[in-house]
């Protein structure tokens, strides 16, 4: 597709379960970003990939959160032992080059996670 694709669009899970969220960026975009948006808040940075490596994971809230991008394209955000506070919309974005200040980020529609 032409844009950033995220799956699933909606995920309902029970507390304590494991969740994977997938992001398929725009073809050729080397940079990939994960953000989290809670209700009534702006998006919060989680992690940034440049190619296959996580260049900055300082926004991940704790060690239950982990993300990979093994081939430099598709990325998966993994959440272990989910808690109710993890409920949010998880947004993925990609860009052509390394920095946001060289141009726009292209966002996906997000994966809405609800932890019961």
């Amino acid at each position, binding site marked *: 597709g032409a844009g950033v694709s995220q799956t699933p669009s909606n995920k309902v899970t029970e507390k304590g379960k494991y969740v994977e969220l997938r992001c398929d960026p725009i073809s050729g975009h080397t940079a990939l970003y994960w953000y989290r948006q809670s209700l009534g*808040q*702006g998006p919060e*940075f989680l992690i940034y990939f440049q190619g296959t490596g996580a260049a900055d994971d300082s926004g991940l809230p704790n060690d239950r959160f982990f993300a990979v991008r093994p081939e430099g394209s598709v990325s998966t955000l993994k959440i272990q032992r989910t808690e109710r506070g993890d409920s949010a919309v998880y947004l993925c974005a990609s860009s052509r080059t390394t*920095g946001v200040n060289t141009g726009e*980020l292209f966002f996906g*529609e997000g994966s809405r996670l609800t932890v019961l």
Partner: protein
Amino acid sequence: SQELEQSPQSLIVQEGKNLTINCTSSKTLYGLYWYKQKYGEGLIFLMMLQKGGEEKSHEKITAKLDEKKQQSSLHITASQPSHAGIYLCGADARGSNYKLTFGKGTLLTVNP
């Protein structure tokens, strides 16, 4: 850490009216970005401002950066129902050209 405060939090206007949304940063602005978000959709890039006094336009939307005030304003002329949505400002921190801090957003409703 940098914080961005947007005002107003929400705004209801009649179609055809002009409006302004403000974004104030707690720290020096090096790059200021405006995005629009509709419910259930991702963020759509509107424009990026990098220099003090810079002003950019996208259709009927104009944004300006006041470096000294650490503030940006977004102005919509002759609003239309299609302008409705959440407007988010974002800023990148010096030395971090990949990480954006966002404000909480301004919810705009345009009544026909």
